């Protein structure tokens, strides 16, 4: 469903991606992890052609993304939902209008059908009663859930999540990840989740891909990934796990 082959991307003299290759099969939910600034969000933006790779090719459902433009690219993007790090909700619109916006602009649905669809999506993310609120009136977790509702409203086959739990407290963060997992299972979506939430994300994805020094160094199921003898993987996983344990321990004391 998603295939990247030998992707290179530089900004000035800084080579961020240096030959990234990976595949995601239909229905798979893959976590993309790596250090800060390793190019995870950049990789997602290349997949949807918000940025172009310097070299390499990307196929989504057999279509070459880099070679697509105009209507073809639009059609390709209509099959992809994207949950931005900060939500990217339109400030001037209510929650309801934010979710309804893609339907109003890009489909011929009537307002009655749009209402039914939007209400359904808001109910799915637990925000049915928040339709009248503006983004500025929402908490961080609610913003992520509205962003998910907006990403899902056109029934995409693929959803890309760009650090959707950044800035959330552990409880809300876990609730958001559980919601993503539930949506993935219910809709049988293909998904890539960029996150630092280790180990919680290992419980909801089928595979973990690690980006390190511009390359994908591993794509494995979570169990195998954690058991990998690779020192880079061990350092990353254990370092995060230790920090998580300390946080959990601290929380239980209070």
């Amino acid at each position, binding site marked *: 469903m998603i295939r990247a082959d030998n992707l290179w991307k530089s900004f000035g003299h800084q080579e961020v991606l240096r030959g990234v290759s990976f595949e995601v099969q239909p229905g798979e939910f893959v976590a993309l992890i790596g250090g800060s600034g390793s190019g995870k969000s950049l990789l997602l*933006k290349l997949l*949807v052609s*918000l940025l172009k790779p310097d070299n390499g090719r990307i196929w989504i459902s057999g279509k070459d993304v880099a070679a697509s433009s105009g209507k073809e690219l*639009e059609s390709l*993007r*209509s099959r*992809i939902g*994207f949950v*931005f*790090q*900060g939500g*990217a*909700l*339109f*400030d001037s619109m209510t929650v309801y209008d934010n979710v309804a*916006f*893609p339907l109003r*602009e*890009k489909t011929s649905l009537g307002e009655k059908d749009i209402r039914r669809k939007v209400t359904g999506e808001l109910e799915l993310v637990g925000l049915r009663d928040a339709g009248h609120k503006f983004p500025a009136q929402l908490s961080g977790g609610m913003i992520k859930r509205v962003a998910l509702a907006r990403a899902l409203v056109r029934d995409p086959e693929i959803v890309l999540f760009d650090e959707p739990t950044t800035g959330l407290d552990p409880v809300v963060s876990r609730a958001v990840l559980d919601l993503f997992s539930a949506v993935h299972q219910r809709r049988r979506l293909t998904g890539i989740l960029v996150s630092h939430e280790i180990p919680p994300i290992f419980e909801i994805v089928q595979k973990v891909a690690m980006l390190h020094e511009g390359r994908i160094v591993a794509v494995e199921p979570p169990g195998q990934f954690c058991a990998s003898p690779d020192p880079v993987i061990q350092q990353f996983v254990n370092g995060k796990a230790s920090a998580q344990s300390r946080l959990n321990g601290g929380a239980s004391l209070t």
Partner: protein
Amino acid sequence: MFLGQTLLHSLTPPVKGERVLRQIWFIGWKSMLVIALTGTFTGMVVALQGFPTLRRVGSEALLGPMVSLSLIRELGPVLTALMVTGRAGSAIAAEIGIMRTSEQIDALELMGLNPLRYVVVPNVLASLLALPVLTAVFDVIGILGGYVVGVGLLGLNGGTYFGEMSNYLEMKDILGGIYKALTFGLLIGWVCCYKGYHSRFGAEGVSAATTQAVVNASALILVWDYFVTSVVF
């Protein structure tokens, strides 16, 4: 290229009429008070400064033409454009800059919507349409301000003020002022949207984009004013 694409999208459907109207309200209607205030005092000060000068050469009867021609040909379009740049242009640049840094523009693109058509075109069209109207308001109120000072304070005959004005004011003066206002409107929309659209990330990036939008648009208005004046009048 940015301007070319914007104009192309302005001329081809679908134009976001509702957003254009909302921006006309924001750029035009919400600038009305500051334009009225600026126009009043500009007209008053032109009369106050001009009257003694005209008296020296025995031509104080020409105060009306002097105030009206100064405002309609030059001060009205330029000062209106500068005030709109400061009040609305800065807000446009900041809003688009925030949309850029908060990835709202990327979100539009991923929905298959052209961000230029949705974000930039309504602002440019609204600016283009609002500036001539605001300039006309500035001119009329400025002329009345000049009347208050010339007739009310300095003792000029009211009939002389308006009578001489109609003798000297020509249609090409009015059309020239409107033409200037139209081009200034396009310039403000273009520069402020461009700076916001290409804002760097973070609060510093938006701040820099806003400052550059105001400074560049203001400087370009004055430079462009010289060339338009040399061609039109």
